């Protein structure tokens, strides 16, 4: 009796230590994009091609990790001139830097929110970026919503004559809506 009382919590501890956060792949219907401001008007951009490896368990943030890889040339914003400009050297410079990548370094609880700290590599520059995370389990699958705000000039996006923030605002809101499928 005494033995069982002792061993049960021990076994429980062993199991949870051995458990890893669930792994997910991103399925159809997921979106990753941004909203930026041009001449005081907000426009939406989306990346048609990106891959993400997501490990997440709300009860075990230490084991969570995101690795997101974005094909920058797949961007569309609903305007032909703008879409043709974004791969240019002044913006994403996709011939030199075809992809952007975000890799988490750690997760933390901030009030009721979960924050994913990580490094965003964009246009050859790597800088710390934090995402606000909302994870909703749905059986063995889940949805993951992430948001953050970047300053485009931190990554030299829209350089030279496009640096004027009165025409193109510095602030860019990034949002992802990922439909996760258990692996």
């Amino acid at each position: 009796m005494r033995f069982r009382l002792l061993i049960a919590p021990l076994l429980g501890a062993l199991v949870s230590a051995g458990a890893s956060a669930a792994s997910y792949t991103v399925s159809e219907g997921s979106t990753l994009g941004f909203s930026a401001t041009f001449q005081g008007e907000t426009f939406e951009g989306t990346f048609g091609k990106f891959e993400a490896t997501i490990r997440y368990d709300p009860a075990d943030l230490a084991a969570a990790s995101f690795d997101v890889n974005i094909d920058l040339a797949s961007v569309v914003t609903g305007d032909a001139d703008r879409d043709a400009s974004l791969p240019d050297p002044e913006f994403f410079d996709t011939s030199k830097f075809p992809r952007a990548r975000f890799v988490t370094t750690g997760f933390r609880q901030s009030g009721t929110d979960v924050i994913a700290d990580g490094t965003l590599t964009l246009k050859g520059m790597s800088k710390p970026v934090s995402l606000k995370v909302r994870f909703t389990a749905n059986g063995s699958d889940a949805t993951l919503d992430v948001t953050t705000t970047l300053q485009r000039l931190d990554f030299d996006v829209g350089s030279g004559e496009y640096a004027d923030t009165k025409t193109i605002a510095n602030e860019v809101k990034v949002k992802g809506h990922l439909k996760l499928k258990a692996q």
Partner: protein
Amino acid sequence: MPIKSTEQRWGSVAKTFHWLMALGIIGTGSLGLYMTDLPRGMTKVNLFALHKSIGLTLLALVLLRLAWRMFDRRPRDEPMARWQRIAAHGAHGMLYVLMLAMPLSGWLYNSARGYALQWFKQFNVPALVAKNETLGDFAILAHVIGFWILAFVLLAHIGGALMHHLFDRDNTLLRMLPFGRLRKRPDGETT
């Protein structure tokens, strides 16, 4: 120079509207022709913004001008053939319609396409309609056709004024010039 128009000549308010808008229409019209074929870049972006800013200003001016026209009187027509009188007034009517239609079709185009419409980088005007590809195509077509009609009517308007000034030697042009001194009329009446 009196503020209001008289029997013989246009008042200072009517003249100011006329010449300010003439400058704006010729300026933004030339800009419109030039800017569309520019390569992508900030120059194109800024010239489009300037074209739209002048256009919005012209829309405000034509509304004020129409309001003033209700309040102001009009000088008597100079003596001229009946067909010239009809053509002149017809051209004026068309110019008013086009002065409204050009900025409004531009505004509609920007709204339907979801483009920004900003007045000299100071403030944005609201969209007239929600995004609508078909309506945007219609609006830009109306804007372009309107431009060519406007160019034609303006040529007739300017040509008519010059013809009256140089050949008929009447006061049609002089009474609209900022500091024009009127000629003696053939019937001996003076200003």
